[in-house]
C-alpha cells in the first residue's frame, strides 16, 4: 500500500551550512515512527524540512501531494500538525485561545467545542488553567498544550519534536500513553523525533537512526531495540 509519507533524497541547509545529506524514509498510515539520533544529527531539521521551514532539495510526498515548495501554512492545511521543539506556545494568549488556534485551519468548523472538551479530558490540568496565560504554565503543561493544539487540527499526521524534553519520566509516560491511545482510536499517524531512545522505542512501531544528516539504520522498533550498536550508543547498556 502507498505510504502516507515518503521522503526521497532530502537535502536541507541553513544558509550555506548543509545539514541533511540525502535522507530517505517512508511512513505507513497509522504507524508511529521515531527518528532517533544524537544532538545535532539533523532530526529537528528533518521535521522542519517536512514543513518547509528550511530550504530543501529532494522530494517529499504526503499521500498524493508533494510538500516541497509549498508554504508552511498550506502544508498544515493538508492535515499535518507540527509540535515544534520549544513547544511554540503563544505565551501571551490563554490556554484555551492556544487550543482554539489549533483548529484554525480546519475545514470542518463544527465540533471544535467538542474537541476542546476532549483535550480537556486527556489533560485535566489544561482545563484548570484554561483562562490562564499560556506562558505561566509549567514545562510539562506547555508540552501537553502543544500536543493538544496539534490534535485540535484533527490531523492525519502529527510531527513531534522531542516531546519528552525537560519532562519528568512519569509525565513522559503519561504523555506517551495518551499518544498511543490517540494513534489507535483516532488513527493519527505520528512521526516522533526523540533523543530519549528508550522511551521512543517503547512508543513507536518503526524507527530510523540518523547520524550527521543521513539515515544509517532502519527497521521495526523491536529490531532496533535489539541492535547491538544502538544498545551501546543510544540505550546505554
Amino acid at each position: 500500500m502507498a505510504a502516507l509519507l515518503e521522503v526521497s533524497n532530502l537535502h536541507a541547509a541553513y544558509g550555506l551550512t548543509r545539514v541533511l545529506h540525502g535522507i530517505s524514509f517512508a511512513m505507513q498510515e497509522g504507524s508511529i515512527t521515531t527518528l532517533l539520533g544524537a544532538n545535532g544529527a539533523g532530526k529537528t531539521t528533518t521535521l522542519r524540512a517536512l514543513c518547509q521551514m528550511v530550504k530543501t532539495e529532494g522530494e517529499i510526498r504526503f499521500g498524493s501531494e508533494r510538500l516541497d515548495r509549498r508554504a508552511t501554512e498550506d502544508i498544515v492545511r493538508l492535515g499535518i500538525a507540527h509540535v515544534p521543539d520549544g513547544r511554540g506556545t503563544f505565551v501571551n494568549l490563554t490556554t484555551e485561545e492556544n487550543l482554539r488556534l489549533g483548529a484554525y485551519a480546519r475545514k470542518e468548523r463544527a465540533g471544535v467545542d467538542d474537541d476542546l472538551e476532549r483535550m480537556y479530558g486527556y489533560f485535566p490540568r489544561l482545563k484548570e488553567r484554561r483562562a490562564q496565560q499560556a506562558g505561566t504554565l509549567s514545562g510539562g503543561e506547555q508540552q501537553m498544550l502543544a500536543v493538544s493544539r496539534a490534535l485540535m487540527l484533527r490531523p492525519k499526521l502529527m510531527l513531534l519534536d522531542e516531546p519528552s524534553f525537560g519532562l519528568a519520566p512519569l509525565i513522559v509516560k503519561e504523555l506517551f500513553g495518551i499518544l498511543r491511545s490517540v494513534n489507535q482510536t483516532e488513527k493519527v499517524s505520528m512521526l516522533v523525533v526523540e533523543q530519549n531512545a528508550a522511551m521512543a522505542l517503547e512508543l513507536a512501531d518503526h524507527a530510523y537512526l540518523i547520524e550527521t544528516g543521513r539515515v544509517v539504520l532502519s527497521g521495526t522498533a523491536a529490531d532496533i531495540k535489539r541492535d547491538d550498536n544502538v544498545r551501546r550508543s543510544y540505550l546505554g547498556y
Partner: protein
Amino acid sequence: MDAFLHQVLAGLATGGIYASLALALVMIYQSTHLVNFAQGEMAMFATYIAWTLINAGMPYWPAFLLTVLLAFVLGVVIERVIIRPVENAPVLAVVVIFIALLVILNSVTGWIYSYTIKTFPSPFPPEPIFGKYMSTHEAGAIGVTLVVLVLLYLFFRFTPLGLALRAAAQNPDSARLVGIRVGWMLALGWGLAAAIGGIAGMMVAPIVYLDPNMMGGILLYAFAAALVGGIDNPWGAVAGGFMVGVLENVLGAFVIGNELKLVVALVLIIGVLVVRPSGFFGKVLVTRV
C-alpha cells in the same frame, strides 16, 4: 477652576485622537516591530478622500464609512506592495522607505488638492450641549474614539480572525504552524491601522483644519503616547493618548505657553526612551546577545 476643567476636557478630546493614532502605531509595531513614520500622512490622505466625497455631495456618515473602507484597502495595498519587500531589510532601509512613503503621500496630496487650507465638516451639531466646558464636536470625538476602541477590542478578543491576528503578531512561526497566513495577517493589521488613522484624521480635521501638513504635530503626540504606554501594549497606547492630550493642554495653557506644546512631546519621547523604554505598561524586552 473652570479654565482648568475646560483644558482637561479639551485634552481628553484631542487625547482620544492621539489614542487612536497611537493604537494604530502599536498595532503595526506589535506585528512587525517597525515604527510607521508615515502613519500621520496615511491618516491625512484618508481625510482628504473623505473631503472629496463630501464635497461631491455625499452625506457625512456614508462618506465616513466609505473612507474607512478605502483607507483599509490603502493600508493593505501599502503593506503588500511597499513594505513587504523590506520587512527583513536593515533598519536604515526600512526607515528610508517609511520616510519615502511619508513624503510621497504628502506631496501627492498637495499636488491634487493644493496647499490651501480647507474646512472639514463635523457631523455633530454646533450648539454646545455641555455648556462652556466642551464643544459638541469634542464630546463627539471622544465618543467616536471610544466606539472604535470597543469594536476593536471585541474583534480581537472574540473573533477567530482577531485571534489569528494576535497570534501572527506575537509569534509568526507558531502561527504558520497552525495554518495562519501570516503575510495576509500583516496586511490586515496595516489595513486596520490605516482605517483607525483615517477615523482619527476625520475627527481632528474640523479642529485644526484640513491641510497636507496637519498631522505632523499630531503624529508626534501619538508617538509620545505610544511610548508612554509601552510600544507593544495597545491598552497602554490608549491610556497614553489620553494622558498626553491632557498633559499637553494643561501645560500649554498654564505652564509653558501654547507655542512650546510640541516640545512637550519631544521631551516625553526622549525622556521615556532614555529612562523607561518599555513605557509605563509595556513589557521589558530582553534581547539575546
